[in-house]
């Protein structure tokens, strides 16, 4: 199975360990992983700001980079959701459609495609799981608290396979952290307050680490934690699942 690894630009620059863990984890399950070096961005920053019409070039490039693979996997629910919902190319719509269906966020790729049942991982810490909205409500990685429906969690089921990991309960299981792309600066006051409140919930329940499927949310909460001088760390879920 050939997988094209799609790494969001800020992960590439600031959180290489999340990307490395993603790659190593996939390789552990016998997947042939390639990182196309000419990749840039999914175009979400423009689209969410109202400039989806400017993402034509990004889309063409994305298709060119990732067309050859059986699947495309990214350690980000948000970027994957954007591709799933908005990857189009009038000149090559057939390819775009195929790609929209074979792009996966890492944890759902592990549970749904690789059907991982056990992991050789150990992480002896108290961990709070942040449900990033785009992964959870957009990609339906976990059941949403608003709905009257059976609970499930794809990332949660993987964390349960990690030895000695203590997954803490939260007061609000799936409240947004307030990052929201450019929202974090255009609506600075509300965004920061949302971030502080989300972090406080984890701290209140004794988290040593806050994890999640989206580094952007974690980066936001990391900024809050560091400013408060907290020792609590953020860590991408790939790093936990890959921890030995």
């Amino acid at each position, binding site marked *: 199975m050939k997988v094209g690894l799609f790494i969001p630009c800020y992960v590439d620059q600031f959180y290489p*360990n999340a990307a490395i863990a993603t*790659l190593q984890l996939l390789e552990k399950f016998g997947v042939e992983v390639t990182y196309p070096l000419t990749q840039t961005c999914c175009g979400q920053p423009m689209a969410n*700001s109202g400039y989806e*019409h400017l993402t034509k*070039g990004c889309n063409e490039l994305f298709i060119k980079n990732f067309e050859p693979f059986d699947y495309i996997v990214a350690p980000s629910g948000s970027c994957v959701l954007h591709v799933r919902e908005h990857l189009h190319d009038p000149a090559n719509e057939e390819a775009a459609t195929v790609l929209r269906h074979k792009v996966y966020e890492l944890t759902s790729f592990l549970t749904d495609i690789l059907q991982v049942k056990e992991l050789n991982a150990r992480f002896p810490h108290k961990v709070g799981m942040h449900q990033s909205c*785009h992964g959870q409500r957009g990609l339906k990685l976990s059941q949403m608290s*608003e709905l009257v429906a059976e609970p499930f969690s794809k990332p949660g089921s993987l964390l349960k396979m990690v030895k000695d990991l203590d997954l803490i309960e939260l007061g609000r299981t799936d409240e947004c952290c307030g990052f929201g792309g450019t929202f974090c600066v255009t609506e600075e006051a509300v*965004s920061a*307050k949302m971030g502080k409140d989300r972090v406080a919930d984890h701290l209140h329940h004794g988290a040593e680490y806050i994890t999640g499927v989206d580094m952007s949310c974690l980066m936001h909460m990391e900024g*809050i934690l560091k400013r408060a001088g907290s020792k609590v760390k953020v860590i991408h879920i790939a790093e936990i699942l890959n921890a030995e």
Partner: protein
Amino acid sequence: MHESTKDHAALAALFNKDEERVNWHDETLWWIRQKRDKNVHQLPEWEALREAASQIKFNVLSNLHDYLLEFEKNATANGVQVHWAADAKEHNEIVHRLLQEHKVDRMVKSKSMLTEECGLNEYLAEQGIEVIDSDLGERIVQLAKEPPSHIVLPCIHKKKEEIGDLFHQYLGTPANVADPQLLTEAARQHLRDVFLTRRAALTGVNFAVAETGEFVVCTNEGNADMGAHLADVHIASMGIEKLIPERKHLGIFLRLLTRSATGQPITTYSSHFKKPRKETPIHIILVDNGRSVQLGRKEFRNSLKCIRCGACMNTCPVYRRSGGHSYHTAVAGPIGSILAPNLDMKKYKDLPFASTLCGSCSNVCPVKIDIHDQLYKWRQELVKEGYTPAAKTISMKLMAQTLSSPTLYNAAGKSGRFVLKHAPFLVNNKLNPWYKEREMPEAPKESFREWYKKRN
């Protein structure tokens, strides 16, 4: 109505100056969201009800022309007088004319967000007509000379001490009384006198039934009924989207409405007005005010399904932390942010951006409006229509150009330069809003790309 030159972000920043109040506001509304959860989880058929309601409402939108005619015919046959208002101005003029015909200059009004949308109180005040809002929350904000901050909980932003001060000033309660029980009793006595002396009553409409020509008004306080049954004339204002096809459909909507709104199984009163009392006319005003235009916007017409339960506000993490007044429009929160631009794109260009697109609103919506998707679509629309700052457009174009070209992207050797330059949260200076309350991420020695290249 709030006339403000400040946008949502600026108004929300003001609201956030008092963090304790933000916490209180957030927790109060979250508590209501939890009550809603607890209540809806008792109905295994909840999601099926939402789906049915959504389909019924879509059927209404797809057949609105005929349903309106059917309603008009049946209501008229019931002895109700039907009026049509193309816009807010015409609505207000109709109300004024009816009051003049009945020689009335004092009116009692139960909750109607439509009259807030139309600015009816202000208009009638200019004509020398006194309007008293009879919903307790609305009466409180009316005394405070503020608009409601929430469509179901009009004074959710006010603390009981502030309400005590208002009542002390206007209703003569003793100073420093802040007990909700005592304050409500004072309002009861004050408004009872209003009900007994006003000869005209205006109510909103929750649902109108095409099949029977009746309309349903829901309250917990009983204020709509007290007003309507004691007055000589009852005026009911409704948006044209409030229609439902058949009476039996009320079974679906009344099950959904209050559970979504406040977590109650139903409002205390769900009153069905079909025929007038003897010699006391009922006038119903069907108001368009932009709704027929919204109906033509394929991407946005679903917003007309809204039954005004306010669940999207209670669940919205942004609304809970910015307060309703930050939305500077009659209907605040997520639903307001997709309704308002239809009325005035320029004035409300900020609202679709007052969201993280987290999607919780769409999940609680009892008629399954794709609210967060519409927020995204309004952003595209606003950009296309030129309502975004030129500087933003220039930087977005530059960003698009760079991201389309791996050569440009990697031109400087390290792609990090691009990220550093363009990511809004990474500008390393103290004027950067990110930095105000959050630290910057630290750049590691080696990017993933560099690591990968070395490895292969």
